[in-house]
């Protein structure tokens, strides 16, 4: 079992969610985060000077999946729909999950 953690642009979240849903992946946990990548945020030119804005708002999506194929597919869907080609598109991390318990049924 794996957890897919994707950090994406907020303005792409709806598109990503929809694409996942269409592919049958509805379950997810999401929250607002802030981040910067290796570009150290975004540069603004302000009257000659350069101002760096870091910690840009992002949305983080977490999806726990059973099979590796699902992981592969989910990664692809997220990446394709979150990508703009410009810095700040985000990252996806795959993290091992040992167990998953459904609280409602206490089933594993």
């Amino acid at each position, binding site marked *: 079992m794996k957890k897919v953690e994707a950090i994406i642009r*907020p*303005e792409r*979240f709806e598109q990503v969610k929809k694409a996942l849903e269409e592919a049958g992946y509805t379950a997810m946990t*999401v929250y*607002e985060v802030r981040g910067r990548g290796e570009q150290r945020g975004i540069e603004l030119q302000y009257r000659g000077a350069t101002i760096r804005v870091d910690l840009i*708002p992002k*949305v983080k999506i977490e999806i726990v999946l059973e099979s590796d194929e699902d992981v592969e597919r989910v990664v692809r869907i997220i990446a394709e729909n979150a990508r703009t080609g410009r810095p700040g598109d985000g990252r996806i991390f795959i993290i091992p999950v040992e167990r998953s318990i459904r609280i409602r049924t206490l089933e594993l």
Partner: protein
Amino acid sequence: MEGLDPGAVAWVLASTAMVVFMSLGLGFFYGGLVRRKNVVSTIMLSFVPVALVTLQWVMVGFSLSFGRDVLGGFVGFDSRYVGLAGVGVGEVAEGTGIPLLLYAAFQGAFAAITVGILSSAFAERVRLAGFMLFALLWTTLVYDPVAHWVWGGGLLHRFLVERLGAAPLDFAGGTVVHITSGFAALVLALVIGARRGFGEREFPPHNIPLVLVGTAMLWFGWFGFNAGSALAADFSAANALLVTHVAASSGALAWMLVAWRRGRPGSLGFASGAVAGLVAITPAAGYVDAVSAIVIGAVAGVLGYYMVLYRLRRGLDESLDAWAVHGMNGLWGSIATGIFARSSVGGVGGLLEGNVAQFAAQLVDAAVAIAYTVAVTYAIAVAVDRLVGLRVSETEEYVGLDISQHGEEAYAWGGE
């Protein structure tokens, strides 16, 4: 302009605007107190009545409240008042120096806020459609008759004058506004039932600064509410403004201090105490002096505090405490007027000046208003519940009324 007192007009114009402002402000006071998922809905429970009751008032409410006695003085009626269509622009309200149309507008603002106050009992669980129907029926069948009795010279007024030789004193609506809305809220809480989870877990207020913004609007607007009720820019208005501010101040401090004894003094206690003081001074504002106002406000603050504790102990989900704060302090204010009224202030003395009749008139007036309100509110609530339903479904309540009733989310998630 014959008969017009421009100073009076200026003040009542401003006062009307202020009362409308506080009616909307009530939405923030209430809206900050609820859970995040119900804030838009709760604000709307104050906003919608402003619009709805205003139209009802123009079409029928003013006529029912301030028309000539019909049905033996149970309500009033005046065909000229329907749609205000027969009222000349140049007509002066009898016994005042202001236009009749302004008088109608000012009084209409009172009717609107009364419905806003009672929405306390509906918070976080009422169906919008049910609420709107209820609001229309209630303002017509409860507010208008009671306003007619107390201010329109109707049934109760005449009865008290005849039997006790004393007309009930209600300067700005202790009985008409606060007793009716507060006791209606009590009944409604019983009819609609507690919010799911009430008593099992806490519902902490989701946004206290918003509550305090509402408090500021209420405090400000109340000067128009009380001092505007002098219907003139005169000595009486000045006294009303002063005692209003004093009672709010002592109410706020009293509640804060009494709460302090049991724990830490919250801002919500301060705010509730201010409102309690404002409510209690409402019927008295034209009749008592500043020192009495300190006492009236302080008692109101303490009373409000214990009434909230009491209704919590009783497990009653009258969610935003319209009963404890408005109902009980409307009652206290009415009684206090009967005690502290001074002839040197408003021409009538109270119990302290030996005027037992006045004291009795206040008690009877309040008691009748309570009894009538309780009975008719109950009937309307049950009827509306049967007819269109007062309460949302369990799922809608779970999701929250902002989404289920309004299709809106108060604070955007995941926004840019």
